[in-house]
């Protein structure tokens, strides 16, 4: 973010020089100038982002402090006075929010307003329950607070509120997943999709990418067919991660790449291990609610969708074969419905091997050590698992591990040098 911001500022200072030296003409200068000034205005500076994070954290701490202070139970005061005190945080949040909207204040004010108003609602509800000593479960309380404060997410476009909302979702007893939980999950999705697709390079899109991960865990905690779901969700996240990576999003701003890769690899390794685990992996679809089958059914169309998109864009599908190979993970749960246990196990072995080889090849093709190593690790992990299955002596196992490790290091060194040499040649 900081690098991109600084690059744009640098380019803007360079434009008059380029025009003076007649490298670019006046209309080009103006167009570039307008374009980058607009992008610079849209992207908050790193300092502003930090400020926003600090203000948001501060607001959360103040909110927590106010809740604790009032939860002390000032039972020495008369009831009417305690009710009025309970209402004060909400009135404060409302005043702050109204001021922010009327004066069109920046992101720092928006974060503060959303978090303080949410805390105000939580405080008022909790304290009335305290004053009258009524019961009620934590689930009901969180549900009420999330429901009535959800508009704050869209009014203030608050990222801290979005984080708190997603945290709150985990109190809705995800193990007892029903349509109410789906409705609460759906509440935050437009916000996430908007940021994911608006400008994928922005800090907001990075935040949205990170926030989708706990939401996916929330869905997986339901009676979703867990391991089949894990394969499908991991494949989807991984495909997203690869696409973002190809668009130049770096590792730390693209959590989907690593999370998708690791979860897919582990799920596949488990499925290649024994027939029993295979059974639990592809367990009966008929047990789950129809709504959980929807993503699985739609997911089956993803390979076809990827093929069509690649053709429409005039790209050869073989430019990104790893996308298609990863998308093939969607087909595994379907195949498990028809294939015999041991056959399915070997199919998963073969699939993981193909995935590893494709990623390694893709790493070489795109000169990416990250992809190269990801593929090599998948192949090595598969080989290690099969190695423990078999009845080799310790001597053979030890030698094989040393050879594998050495091959891994040598391959990295050779490929690393080759990439450097090619980069030097191009320069």
């Amino acid at each position, binding site marked *: 973010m900081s690098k991109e911001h600084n690059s744009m500022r640098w380019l803007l200072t360079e434009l008059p020089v380029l025009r003076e030296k007649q490298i670019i003409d006046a209309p080009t200068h103006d167009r570039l100038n307008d374009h980058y000034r607009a992008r610079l205005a849209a992207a908050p500076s790193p300092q502003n982002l930090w400020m926003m994070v600090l203000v948001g954290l501060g607001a959360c701490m103040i909110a927590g402090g106010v809740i604790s202070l009032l*939860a002390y*139970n*000032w*039972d020495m005061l008369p009831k009417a006075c305690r009710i009025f005190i309970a209402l004060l945080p909400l009135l404060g949040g*409302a005043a702050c929010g109204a001021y922010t*909207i009327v004066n069109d204040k920046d992101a720092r004010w928006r974060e503060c307003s959303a978090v303080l108003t949410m805390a105000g609602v939580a405080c008022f*509800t909790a304290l*009335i*329950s305290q004053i009258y000593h009524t019961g009620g479960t934590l689930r009901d309380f969180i549900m009420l607070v999330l429901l*009535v404060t959800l508009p704050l997410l869209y009014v203030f476009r608050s990222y801290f509120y979005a984080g708190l909302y997603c945290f709150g979702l985990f109190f809705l007893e995800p193990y007892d997943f029903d349509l109410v939980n789906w409705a609460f999950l759906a509440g935050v999705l437009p916000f996430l999709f908007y940021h994911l697709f608006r400008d994928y390079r922005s800090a907001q899109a990075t935040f949205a990418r990170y926030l989708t991960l706990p939401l996916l865990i929330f869905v997986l905690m339901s009676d979703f067919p867990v391991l089949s779901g894990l394969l499908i969700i991991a494949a989807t996240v991984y495909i997203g991660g690869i696409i973002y990576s190809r668009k130049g999003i770096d590792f730390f701003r693209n959590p989907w790449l690593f999370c998708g890769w690791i979860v897919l690899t582990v799920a596949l390794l488990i499925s290649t291990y024994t027939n029993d685990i295979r059974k639990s992996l592809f367990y009966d679809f008929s047990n789950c609610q129809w709504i959980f089958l929807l993503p699985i059914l739609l997911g089956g169309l993803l390979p076809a969708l990827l093929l069509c998109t690649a053709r429409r864009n005039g790209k050869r599908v073989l430019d990104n074969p790893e996308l298609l190979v990863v998308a093939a993970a969607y087909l595994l749960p379907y195949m498990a419905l028809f294939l015999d246990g041991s056959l399915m196990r070997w199919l998963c072995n073969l699939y993981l091997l193909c995935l590893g080889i494709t990623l390694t090849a893709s790493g070489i093709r795109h000169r990416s050590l990250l992809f190269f190593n990801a593929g090599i690790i998948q192949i090595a992990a598969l080989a290690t698992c099969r190695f423990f299955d078999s009845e080799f002596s310790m001597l053979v196992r030890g030698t094989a591990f040393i050879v594998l490790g050495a091959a891994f290091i040598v391959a990295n060194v050779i490929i690393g040098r080759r990439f450097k040499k090619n980069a030097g040649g191009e320069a």
Partner: protein
Amino acid sequence: MNPVKIIKLIVFALAVLAGMAYPASKIIRFEFPGQPPAVYRFRTGIVDPFDPFRGRYVVLRPLPSEVQIPNKGFDPKYAVLGLDEKGLATVTDLTEAPVKGRDCVRLESAYFQNWNKEKPSYGITLPFDRFYLNEELAPEAEKAFNEAIRKGDDVCVIKVNIYQNGDYAIEDLEIEGMPIHQYLKQSTRKE
């Protein structure tokens, strides 16, 4: 002011009002009921835990937790209240809906126990399970209760307002006939 700002303000105001609505309706129901609530005193036991949003409280174990009546053939939702010879609350019947003209309270749970054929009974859980106290008093209350309970099981009672619609609000926790705050003050003076 531009229309987007006006819409944002309206949505925000609605959200704030929605946030106030539930607690406000609770205040109105408890403070201005259609008919004044009936006051019952339930025997209870207590322990002292913590709630992150509402602070320190004592968990109440209100009695009775068992009612000797034959199987009703339905899932009881309400307990019809009465008084025993000591003037403390007791449950006289279990029903599916509130009974007009009788004081009822919505049950947390009720299940039929058929292990004793001669004395069939229902296991019930009354809904009042928390009494909030500040963090200094809650452990003292638990200690005071543990000492007082040796004198008999009627010494610790909760005073509950029962409303016509089955709602309730706990008014006070009493030990040996004294409100908890007064009792704790007195026992501190004695020490």
